[in-house]
């Protein structure tokens, strides 16, 4: 055995071109189009048909192909098959295509969902990073709280001092006022008591008479006015 050289060309890792969708063109379901194209320059359009007819007649007349009962059976079977394919072929093809379509669509859906999930995940991560950046707010708030508490405490202490001193001074003033008022009241009472005591019955009668005279005078002047 001679050994043929293998793997002579360089390996290229380019991806293969996509496979064609449809097969080669065929005429009458059997003969490829390339045959007709091949004969066209020499014999024109009818060339291959003439060749075919001639070949058939030659086979029949020389009895290279013998007509017997199997010929009839073949003709019947072939005609039934052809009729079935021509009538139901497209429907079956569409059904098979639909099955394939579904598979592909499912795979595509999975891929799209994966893409969407990854994108949302990236969004979330970016958002979390943005949140983390705001941590300075927290510490500002805490320091503010501390400053406020200190300031409040200091002011409370000042107020306490002031209030205590004021309370004591006010107490002194209030005590003084109270004492003076009590003294005044007592003195007034004492004076009144003494005056009442000193009014003798004689003085009382004289003052009552004077009051009556005054009243009469007043009533006269009042009558005169009215």
């Amino acid at each position, binding site marked *: 055995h001679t050994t043929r050289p293998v793997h002579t060309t360089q390996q290229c890792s380019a*991806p293969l071109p*996509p*496979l064609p969708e449809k097969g080669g063109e065929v005429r009458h379901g059997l003969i490829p189009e390339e045959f007709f194209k091949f004969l066209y320059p020499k014999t024109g359009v009818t060339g291959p048909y003439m060749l075919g007819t001639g070949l058939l007649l030659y086979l029949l007349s020389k009895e290279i192909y013998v007509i017997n009962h199997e010929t009839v059976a073949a003709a019947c079977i072939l005609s039934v098959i052809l009729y079935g394919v021509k009538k139901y072929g497209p429907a079956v093809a569409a059904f098979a295509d639909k099955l394939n379509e579904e598979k*592909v669509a499912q*795979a*595509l859906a999975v*891929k799209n969902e*994966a*893409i969407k999930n*990854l*994108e949302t*995940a*990236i969004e979330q*991560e*970016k958002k*979390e*990073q*943005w*949140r*983390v*950046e*705001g*941590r300075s*707010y*927290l*510490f*500002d*708030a*805490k*320091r*503010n*709280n*501390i*400053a*406020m*508490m*200190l*300031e*409040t*405490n*200091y*002011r*409370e*202490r*000042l*107020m306490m*001092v*002031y*209030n205590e*001193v*004021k309370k*004591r*001074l006010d107490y*002194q*003033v209030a005590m*003084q006022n109270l004492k003076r008022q009590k003294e005044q009241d007592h003195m007034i009472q004492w004076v009144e008591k003494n005056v009442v005591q000193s009014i003798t019955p004689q003085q009382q009668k004289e003052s009552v008479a004077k009051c009556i005279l005054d009243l009469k005078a007043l009533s006269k002047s009042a009558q005169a006015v009215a």
Partner: protein
Amino acid sequence: MAGRRAAIKAIDWAAFAERVPPNQKAMFNALKTRSDALSARLAALPEKPPTIDWAYYKATVAKAGMVDEFQKKFSALKVPEPVDTQSTKIDAQEQDAAKSSAEYVQASKARIAQYEQQLQKLRSMIPFEQMTFEDLHEAFPETKLDKEKYPFWPHKPIADL
């Protein structure tokens, strides 16, 4: 008085609230209420207490040296400022937070890089119509049938069909 008027920064609570993740909202609300209570208390107190009218008291109070004594002692009195014990703790917390957040951000960036890589791979895939089964197994390794583990058809456990 040095150190007394530590500046109270104005905090933008709205912006702060935006950055709080939903699972920490309760803590944030607690902090806010505490802050608001403190600032309300602070605003209720006057900055300086009102001055005592010494002349009036000197004229009114009978006891001779009492008012003078009070006045002397009052003006000599220094109210001690409250000592700040927590600021160092806050600074320490801030350092820790800075460190941990730097770590988190780094981990997050690594995750983002990973996601980007996968995204790139998915986006640059050939369309399914042009794929062979080998191409599919390359793109999604989980579709590859394990012929060593399950040598007989269908090459995967029956439950997975």
